[in-house]
């Protein structure tokens, strides 16, 4: 069996525009008032056909519209893209088609159109259930708008997920516990809970560098936030299946599982990354980042990629280790060895089991709850072994 089948095959499509840029966001997103959606449509369709030609005959498990704010796309654009996708690959019976949506009233009005185009899951960026905090996070919507949009989504789509950001400025543990419990009553089947991370090159990053971003929790409180999050979600039957993702059994994001299980994914759009296996090689691809430049490149050269290279075996192994240990199900040791060309030393594994960071079952290792809390260090430890 080809290795990528262990993770499946998906398509990621990047829409690089937002109405405003959030101060914590380090994604490839841009604010633009004039977007020629017809022109973008031609480019996306052309790219789908191009990559389709080299992945002929594959069964597609997932499509994901990410961004940016894909809910700024006209439903007609989404519909045309999905029509081309169906014409290019065979879709799995349970093919998951997700679109990231802003929880505003305007977007909610487009939900029905997205559903009719074939979207069967939305992931909403609600981020907080407190108006003051939404403003601090630079979000344009209010809590009331978000709840209303969520209700529309709930009745329109089979599956709905939303994101919250925690460990925010001046947030207390108690506030978060209450907010999270509240969020869990909203009857989503999936929820992504991200600890606020201040990245370089963002507005928050600049503020932090100038000492103007105050009230962020230190490591101890961060750890308490994370632990409380696990506890509350667990009690609500929404265990973490990945570091920051919680779902009812069976409602996990199939698309994201492809990443974490080291399946294959096509990346289309500005700055979109892809991983494609061919024979024994695994290729990494990356689209040109600037939206205008990507568009022109697709139009003039019929290819928006800025990079396409074979991953070195060590890098392939490192990626698998890094991604798969985020999952509760963990990592397959034989798969890791097949990439790395070497096994992880049994002594190293035994040491990590002894200090309670991992558990080892037949051919599979998992990070324990304690291990997942310090996963970066754990991964570095295993990777150096």
């Amino acid at each position, binding site marked *: 069996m080809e290795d990528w089948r262990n993770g499946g095959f998906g398509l990621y499509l*990047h829409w690089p525009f937002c109405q405003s840029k959030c101060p914590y966001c380090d994604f490839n997103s841009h604010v633009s008032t004039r977007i020629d959606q017809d022109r973008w449509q031609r480019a996306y369709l052309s790219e789908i056909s191009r990559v389709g030609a080299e992945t002929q005959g594959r069964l597609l498990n997932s499509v994901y519209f990410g961004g940016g704010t894909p809910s700024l796309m006209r439903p007609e654009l989404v519909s045309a893209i999905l029509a081309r996708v169906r014409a290019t690959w065979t879709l799995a019976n349970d093919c998951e088609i997700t679109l990231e949506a802003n929880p505003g009233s305007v977007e909610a009005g487009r939900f029905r159109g997205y559903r009719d185009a074939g979207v069967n899951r939305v992931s909403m960026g609600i981020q907080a259930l407190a108006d003051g905090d939404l403003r601090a996070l630079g979000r344009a919507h209010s809590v009331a708008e978000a709840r209303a949009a969520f209700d529309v989504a709930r009745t329109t789509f089979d599956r709905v997920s939303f994101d919250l950001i925690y460990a925010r400025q001046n947030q207390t543990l108690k506030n978060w516990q209450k907010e999270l419990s509240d969020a869990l009553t909203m009857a989503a089947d999936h929820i992504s809970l*991200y600890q606020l991370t201040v990245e370089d090159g963002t507005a928050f990053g600049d503020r932090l560098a100038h000492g103007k971003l105050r009230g962020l929790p230190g490591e101890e409180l961060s750890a308490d936030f994370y632990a409380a999050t696990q506890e509350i979600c667990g009690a609500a039957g929404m265990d973490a299946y990945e570091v*920051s993702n919680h779902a009812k059994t069976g409602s996990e994001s199939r698309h994201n599982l492809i990443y974490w299980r080291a399946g294959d*994914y096509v990346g289309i759009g500005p700055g979109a990354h892809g991983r494609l296996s061919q024979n024994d090689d695994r290729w*990494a691809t990356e689209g040109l980042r600037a939206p205008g430049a990507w568009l022109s490149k697709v139009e003039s050269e019929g290819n928006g990629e800025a990079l396409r290279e074979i991953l070195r075996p060590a890098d392939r192994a490192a990626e698998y280790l890094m991604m798969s240990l985020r999952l509760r199900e963990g990592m397959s040791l034989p798969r890791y060895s097949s990439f790395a060309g070497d096994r992880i030393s049994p002594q190293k594994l035994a*040491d990590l089991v002894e200090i309670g960071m991992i558990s080892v079952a037949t051919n599979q290792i998992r990070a324990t709850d304690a291990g997942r809390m*310090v996963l970066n*260090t754990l991964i570095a430890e295993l990777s150096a072994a």
Partner: protein
Amino acid sequence: MTQLDLIRNFSIVAHIDHGKSTLADRLIQSTGTVKDRDMKAQLLDSMDIERERGITIKANTVRIEYPAKDGKTYILNLIDTPGHVDFAYEVSRSMRAVEGSLLVVDASQGVEAQTLANVYQALDAGHEIVPVLNKIDLPAAEPERIKQQIEDVIGLDAKDAILISAKSGLGIPDVLEAIVTRLPAPKGDREAPLKAMLVDSWYDAYLGVVVMVRIMDGVMKKGDRIRMMQTNAVYGIDTLAVLKPQMVDIAELGPGEIGVFTASIKQVRDTRVGDTITHERKGCETPLPGFKPAQPVVFCGLFPVDAADFEALRDAIEKLSLNDASFSSEMETSAALGFGFRCGFLGLLHLEVIRDRLEREYDLDLITTAPSVVFKLYMKDGEVRDLHNPADMPDLTFVDHIEEPRIKATIMVPDDYLGDILKLCQDRRGIQLDLSYAGSRAMVVYDLPLAEVVFDFYDRLKSVTKGYASFDYTISGYREDFLVKMSILVNEEPVDALSMMVHRDRAEARGRAMVEKLKELIPRHMFKIPIQAAIGSRVIARETLSAMRKDVTAKCYGGDATRKRKLLDKQKAGKKRMRQFGKVEIPQEAFISALKMDG
């Protein structure tokens, strides 16, 4: 050969920065010994490190021809000696090869501790001394005050001191004339059997070992069969030359002359500085007095950062040893640092110079362990052992008592800082021997344990006096004290490279400072780590480095894989700069930083 009364042999005594090398340059230049176009600053300091640090490490020599006012042309042999205490032995043997010295003192700075030590060496060697006040053209120059100071502190008559500016050339003719008129000519008997002093030797890539000699009696010629009296080795002289300062062949060297020869000698170690050289046949009966090899007094471990560089380090050390017989090395294995060498040095500057040369000239990345001194262990069975490495300390039940080397330290300091100096010396277990004043400067003499000085005494001295203190020392002998080995345990395991000998009364404070410092230096791990200082099995200080609680990236999706993988690569590269010790990774800088501490 030159008539004895037309020869003057001399050295220059000065504190660092008082202008010794510049004066030497001017003497060479003004006599036309070196053409102006070939002149470069600090001509005699040939090593990069010497030029950079403005110091002289090896003795260097130049033969100058000087037509004096009396109409005769004299041969002046200048031996430029190191000024630093670490190289005191090089100074003392160079001093015995000449008859007089120029004492160069900065006309605004005055006499420094180092000047004193070297002047006493010159006086011990029976030198005639001509005081020279340099930098006389600077606005801050106070020649009268400094003359008075020379008389008060050293006890030399300074009224005829020569006033010069080596930089501008002012007064240089007076210096040359004084060398001829005020310094004595050498003595010697041309008809007596050959008796020559081995002053220095070095390795030259083209010529092999080059030996510098001062002829006392007799004549040395090319082709002569000679014998080293100390080693009894016999050689044939291949080339004979004088230094101007480049080698110029000469047919013979007679009494009072200084020159060099080569004799197919393989390594510098085969030549003993201070040895007496005579002819194989009809040699002299008694050697020159006072031969003693230089003894390393400070030891430390040198380990390659990358274990794969061990062979390269071995080669580099061998090559450096070829040219520096005072530097010793033997292989050492450390559980913490792997394979390396335990090296002995003449002092801390010597240690730094050698380490710099290894890193720079041989492109090596090194970990240097804490410097230690040689303790004498008096065992219960009567044996006396030298302890070079605290890690080798035997079980105390076998040890009767321990002695440590003491120094006599002379510190000169403006009296504003005297209190700080006394406190520093007191804190380092010093015993005050003398305290006197010369103007607004105090001179304090302390008996101190060398072990307390090799850490960061000099750095502390400079910082508490804002650089105004000068310091010099001589080894004064060994004395018993209540010394113990303090071990450092990280995660319950002793880290050999961090163990040290300390005075029992200071062990708690030292141990506490050490574990606190290590707690800062060792990054947190996935588990908690006890850090302890112990004497034997008794823990005297303890800290616990808490376990890391949270370190996980919140978001990691398909688009993040490349970037996060690159971060992981960086993290792994960082881990390579750590030393694995048991389950704990200790950063290299911890081995050095942990030992640099106050008080």
